[in-house]
């Protein structure tokens, strides 16, 4: 079966930035994503112990390349300063490119 090239955007952020990320996705008409809670360590210290509000959340969003640029531009502009966020992009292949 043919696999069509597209992009996977992965975002790891403190749980408090969750709503902001969802808002940005909505704004860019992206209706599909997968998310789950993770622990982690980084510049802002250990996360995932103790209070719920100190957890990390990880988003994975399959999207095509043109949307990608706008989304990461908006995230880095509006959220990087105030929240612990790490994001990265992977090349992936999917079966039904029209879905994303």
């Amino acid at each position, binding site marked *: 079966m043919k696999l069509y090239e597209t992009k996977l955007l992965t975002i790891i952020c403190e749980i408090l930035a969750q709503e902001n990320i969802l808002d940005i996705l909505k704004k860019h008409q992206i209706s599909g994503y997968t998310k789950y809670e993770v622990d982690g360590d980084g510049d802002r210290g250990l996360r995932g112990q103790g209070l719920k*509000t100190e957890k990390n959340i990880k988003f994975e969003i399959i999207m095509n390349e043109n949307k990608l640029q706008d989304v990461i531009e908006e995230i880095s502009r509006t959220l990087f*300063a105030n929240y612990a966020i790490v994001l990265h992009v992977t090349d992936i292949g999917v079966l039904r490119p029209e879905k994303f």
Partner: protein
Amino acid sequence: MDILELIQSNLLTPIILFFLFGIIAARIKSDLKIPEAISEFLPIYLLAAIGLHGGIEMRNTGFENMLIPMFVAIGLSLLFTLNHYQILRRLGKFNIFDSYALASTYGAVGAVHFSVGLSFLKNQGVSSEGYLAAILAVLEPLAFIMAIFMTNMAVSKQNKTKQQSLGDTSSEMDLGLNQSKVKISKVLRESITGKAIVILLGSIVIGYIIGEEGFQSIKIVFDDLFTGAIVIFMIEMGIIAGQRLDDIKKVGIFLTTFAVLIPTFNGIIGVLISTAIGLSLGGAVMFGLLLASASFIAAPAVLRHAIPQAKPSLYITSALGITFPYNIIVTLPILFTISSFLHNGDGTINLLSIFINN
């Protein structure tokens, strides 16, 4: 029993001892942990129990006489929040964001404080007015809303000044400021639908409806297990407080002093005024404790969103690591002694009238 004796005997109750135990467990880096599902569930349970208890009491005693205490509590809470801000900003030299965040953390109220207070009174065989649970629900979001409102105002003013001097309207900082201005309605909404208030108000109403009789079938879960459940929750609170103890250095001497003196002051004022407006011995203690309390569960959730520029290491650490243990160990017995004196001592009326006349 004088204050010191009472502090000592209070220190030796399971609630306090398990809290201290949690701190020690965290300090020696034990892997002890209450599973997350349990420590998420316990506050919901405690609030439901508080609410049911309050609702049933309100049915017994009516709630017409709740209006004056409610408004007094609201007034004091707002006043105290402003007072905290002045102290922190002027004397403490904190920046505007940290000042408002801390001011509201100490202006807000804590449900865990309230639970411990109820259990303390139960131990002393003293009861309190049921409507205090309703006051708890109303005070919960109050200080935050005001602090966020004030922050927005302050930010807009700064903003305007800057724009006038720079003539630049589309800077990124500007964008951030505009964003924070719209947040207040969202914060208001989220506060009111926040799980703490919802379960508390819901349980008050249900308690009021079912009354003592309807409560019988669930009394064992929502009353008899109450203190044991607090004990389990206190282990986890102790562990979290213990993990944050290192951060106390960052808190600094000024804020440490603030975190001890302000609750004492607010609490005593609370006891005096509530006694003056007619609350019972136990009611005055709870009223004072509400005003003395600082929020450490709601605060991080609300403030991190609403004033993201403020440092959580300041407001969480001081509220949970300093004020909470201080309040349940020291302030509570102090307030109880004062309230006992005011209500039982012969000089009560005189003393109060003197206080009020001043």
